[in-house]
Structure formats: structure tokens, C-alpha cells
């Protein structure tokens, strides 16, 4: 169950091309699991920007000197995130969280491979720690456009058995995409499960590689949201349910974590004809 809190900015720091923001948010840290996200009001109470910005939660501290804190990573894309990047310690920030369904953890000790694209690695780092606590082997693949848009390498090195890095421009690690190195790593690490977070095209590629090998993968999707709490119906994507039927489901409450092979990647952004309640199927008007 999420809480809405008037938080206070503790710190904002630059991490490569990104910003890391830590907010004192009483009551939120203890509810948070890896994969949860937080929805942040931007522009202040009189803002002309009405909609919350959603970010995966990177780190939480249940009890610190300042009380419970929540940290998230963001990139400046527009006016809302630019406002956020300009916050300073002690500024007030209205947060709602933790939101969404987190990653599901394996019951047994397994070999887990974690694939992060850009700052999509942020929720994978606390996940890696949880997996290690359960005795799982953890291997990482981190990819980005260039070296400045890689996130979490140091954390990943500390936690994981191995780490592979790819960049589109070859500025760090191997030149190419995460999908270029993933098949080999899955064999070498004898991976039982894969977790991924990053751009939709990357999640699709990771799912295809895993599905071909019969390895289950959980992916955290990125869909634009207006509310983050399940009332606006804007963040939907076509997902196959246990009954084999496809529905347009909300990534904020039914996700953001889905089983990769349940998402109809080629149909994201459309309403497939065979979806439950499809207009083209003649059930509406």
C-alpha cells in the first residue's frame, strides 16, 4: 500500500549523465522492494505541470540520521525533470510510493543474470543485493549509448560475480548492445533466471534471447504515466494473462514488472485485434 508524503530533499548529485536524488520520505522506505517506483510531483503546488513523474526506486534507508530516505535516478528530459534537477537540500517534494509490483524473488538459490540499459540498472542494484542475500549467483550486463550514460558499474562490481559492459559508441566496454553479449553470458554463468530494466527495444531483445533458451525473465517496463496509482488508464500495454487472453493492462499497478514472454512486444503502442474488448473485434462501437 503506497503512502503520499511531503518529503524533504536530502541531496541531489550528478552521476554521469544522470541525477541521483535522495529524499527524506517517512514511512516509504520500509514498504519498498526492488522494482517498486515512486511518483513525484514537479513544479510545486501551483505548478502548471499537473502530472507526476515516475522513477524506479534505487536505494532506500529505513532509518538514518534524518529518518527513512528514498533515492531515485533520473535524466533531464523536459521541464519537469529540469525543475527536479534544480532542487536543493531541504526543498519540499511531494512523493507517492512505493508503487507497482516489484520483482519476484526466487525461492531457491539460482543463478541470476541482470540486464540494465542506461539508468534502467537503478532498480537492479538493490535487486542484486537481495538475490545475493538469498545465496544466488548474480551476473550483470550493463549497456548504454555511451560511457556517461552507464549507471551503477561500481555497485554492480561489488555485488556481482561478473559484469559485462557495452556501449553503442564503444566509449566503454564492448561496442554494441547488451543483446550482443547476453547469449554467451547466459551459457557461461549457467543462468536460471534473467531480470531486465531499460528501454522497450532492449527488453524485447532480452526476452527473445531468454525465450529461445527457455530461461524465464522478468522485465520492468517504461511506459508514460499520468497518475502512477492506477486511475488514469494511460500506461497500458498488451499482456497475455494466465488464461491465454491478451488484455490492455496498466503498467503502474499490474506492472511495471512483467514476465517478458507475456508482453506482446511487437504490439506495444497498438491495440491488437484479439485483445479483450478490442474495438476492431466488434465488441465496442
Amino acid at each position, binding site marked *: 500500500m503506497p503512502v503520499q508524503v511531503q518529503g524533504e530533499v536530502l541531496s541531489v548529485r550528478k552521476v554521469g549523465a544522470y541525477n541521483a536524488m535522495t529524499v527524506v520520505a517517512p514511512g516509504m522506505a520500509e514498504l519498498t522492494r526492488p522494482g517498486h517506483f515512486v511518483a513525484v510531483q514537479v513544479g510545486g503546488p501551483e505548478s502548471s505541470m499537473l502530472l507526476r513523474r515516475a522513477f524506479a526506486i534505487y536505494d532506500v534507508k529505513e532509518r538514518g540520521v534524518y529518518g527513512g530516505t528514498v533515492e531515485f535516478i533520473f535524466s533531464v528530459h523536459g521541464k519537469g525533470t529540469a525543475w527536479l534537477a534544480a532542487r536543493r537540500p531541504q526543498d519540499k517534494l511531494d512523493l507517492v510510493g512505493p508503487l507497482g509490483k516489484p520483482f519476484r524473488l526466487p525461492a531457491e538459490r539460482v543463478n541470476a543474470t541482470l540486464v540494465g540499459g542506461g539508468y534502467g540498472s537503478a532498480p537492479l542494484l538493490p535487486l542484486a543485493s537481495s538475490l545475493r542475500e538469498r545465496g544466488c549467483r548474480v551476473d550483470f550486463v550493463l549497456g548504454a549509448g555511451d560511457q556517461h550514460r552507464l549507471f551503477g558499474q561500481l555497485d554492480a562490481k561489488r555485488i556481482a560475480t561478473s559484469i559485462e559492459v557495452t556501449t553503442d559508441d564503444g566509449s566503454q566496454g564492448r561496442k554494441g548492445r547488451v543483446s550482443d553479449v547476453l547469449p554467451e553470458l547466459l551459457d557461461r554463468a549457467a543462468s536460471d533466471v534473467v531480470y531486465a530494466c531499460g528501454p522497450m527495444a532492449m527488453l524485447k531483445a532480452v526476452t527473445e534471447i531468454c525465450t529461445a533458451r527457455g530461461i524465464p525473465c522478468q522485465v520492468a517496463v517504461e511506459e508514460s504515466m499520468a497518475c502512477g496509482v492506477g486511475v488514469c*488508464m494511460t500506461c497500458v500495454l498488451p499482456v497475455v494473462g494466465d488464461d491465454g487472453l491478451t488484455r490492455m493492462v496498466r503498467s503502474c499497478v499490474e506492472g511495471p514488472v512483467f514476465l517478458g514472454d507475456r508482453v506482446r512486444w511487437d504490439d506495444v503502442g497498438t491495440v491488437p485485434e484479439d485483445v479483450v474488448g478490442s474495438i476492431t473485434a466488434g*465488441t465496442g462501437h
Partner: protein
Amino acid sequence: MTLRPELTKTEVTVRKREEVFTRPDVDLTTRLGGVTFPNPVFTASGCAAAGQELDQFFDVSELGGVVTKSIMLAPRSGRPTPRMAETPSGMVNSIGLQGPGIDAFLDKDLAWLAQRGARAVVSIAGGSVDEYAKLAAKLRGQKGLAMIEVNISCPNVEDRGQVFACDPVASAAVVQAVKRAAPTGVPVFAKLSPDVTDITEIARACVDAGADGLSLINTLLGMVIDTHTLRPALGGVTGGLSGPAIRPVAVRCVWQVRQALPEVPILGMGGIRTGLDALEFLLAGANAVSVGTTVFGDPSAPIRILDELAVALAERGFGSVSEVVGLAHRPPDVHVPEGPDPVGDLVIEEDE
């Protein structure tokens, strides 16, 4: 019929602020089509689903009512994404009435609202007069149903020619069919579009056809073009504009309809963000208000706005909501009542 009058208690816990807020002793009750509601703040259709998600943030039974997302006969998947684009003080959406269909809605959503003790205002939407009538008939005997809102003005249909609220004859036909099929004693409100030449003409047609009141207003038809992709921002190309950006349009519509039809109850909505915004609608002639798009940015907004409205009324020396309904229509020389004089004593000018 009075629904749960005990909820007009004055002391409530505002969870968000984690403190006890003592609401001023103002009579917040309001009447809509023969039904007395404990207060005039409702959710808006399409902005609160069926109440369960918002109940995580505040007790939805404390609101005047929960207006549910428009439901159709069959399950409906809605329009492709992107479905939303933020605009200055607003947003444009093209959801396309995604929903589970009336049967699943009654079993799951309305049942939950009834069990929760909330007053449900069920919004219905159809593609034909017959579909509206069938939906209204399905609501007979349903527990928790306080009111029906007939959405004849959703802009997100395939053919704008199907927006009933753009045509007085089509609007009247839907309202008449719903009134015939609906359970007796449950007010039927028609929700109108501001995208018409004269909203009072549509309002009058609905009332003549039997509408017990009017919900004003639905979204304005809008559009955003993405300057990066150089294409329309919404999957549905056009969408409905909502939020504080449209508030002056909504206040104007409420004002015009109150002036043309002084006796007809109005549920006002369009960009309400604060208690003072709600007061503005009451002054224009709304008997109650719905809080819509603001909820997306602030899930506890409806209960905050109710608290702020109570404070705003008390600060201005009013003892009840009914005193301020339509008060802005008084002639300039009429003295603002300090005590609880009924608004009915005021002269309401008819501008014909």
C-alpha cells in the same frame, strides 16, 4: 432520501498531513435531484476508476460521491498508446473508454463501493440509444447506487458524429431512454460537452427529456503535435483537454446553464484544484462539484478540497453550502448575507 447523513461529521483525519484537522462547523449537505448528499465534493468520471485505488489515500466514503469511470455494455480495450500528453495546466487524453463491461463492473466495482459505504454515481456510455437503455436497466436493484451520470459527451469515440451531446435531439433521445429504464428514485444526470455553439440548448433538451440534473462539463476536444517525432502526440490523434486550463470554460458553462434553467441541479467540474476553485463553481450555480484531473497529480486531492471548501465557506461567514449555490448571479446591489439566509430568496436574473 438521505444517504448516510452521519458522515457530515466535522472531525476527520487527513492522512496525508498525518494530523487531525477539525473541519469548520458548516452544513455541507447538498441536494441533487431529490437526493441529499453529505457534502458537495465528488470524484469525476474517468479520473478515479471505481474508487478502490484512491481509497488507499483517503476514505472514499467521506466524499459526497464517487463518480465511476464510464462503463459500457461489453468489455472495451480503448485506444492505442500514447494516450496522454501533458499541456500547460492540463492534459489531453485519448483513453477511449477502456473498461471491463457492465456485468464485471457490477460484480466487482459497484459491489466494492456499496460494501465500503460510498455513494456511487455510475457513469454509463453507449454507442446507441438502445445500449444506454440496457445499461440503465442493469442498474435496477443495485446496492450502493446513488445516482446515474449519462456520458453523452466523450470525445474519444471513432466518429465525432457519435457524440450525442452535440445534438439536442440525440441527447434527448438518450436521456429519455435512460430515464425509462433506470431505477426509480435514482437521479439521472446528463453530462454535456462544452464543444457546442449553445450549451443551454442541449441542457434544455436533456431536461425536457426527463434529466434530473446536468453534469457540466466533459473535456474539450484538443490535440498536441510532438515536435520531435513531427506527428500527433496521441495514438488517437485527437483527445479530451482537461485540467485547470479549462476551468474558465467550465465556470462559464455552469453560469450559462444556471441562468437559463434556474431550478435544475448541476454537478460542476473542469479543472478544480483547490477549495476556492470548488467555491467558484458553487457560486456560478453548481450544487456539487467533481474533482478530476487534479487527482492524477494529487491522489488525496478530493478530501483536501472538501476541507479547503469548508474552511473557505466558514471564513466568508457562510453556514451552509446551499447559501452559496448560484450566489454570483445576484444583482450587484444585493447585500451578501452574513447569516444562513436561503439562496432562494435571491433574485436570479434571466437573460433571455
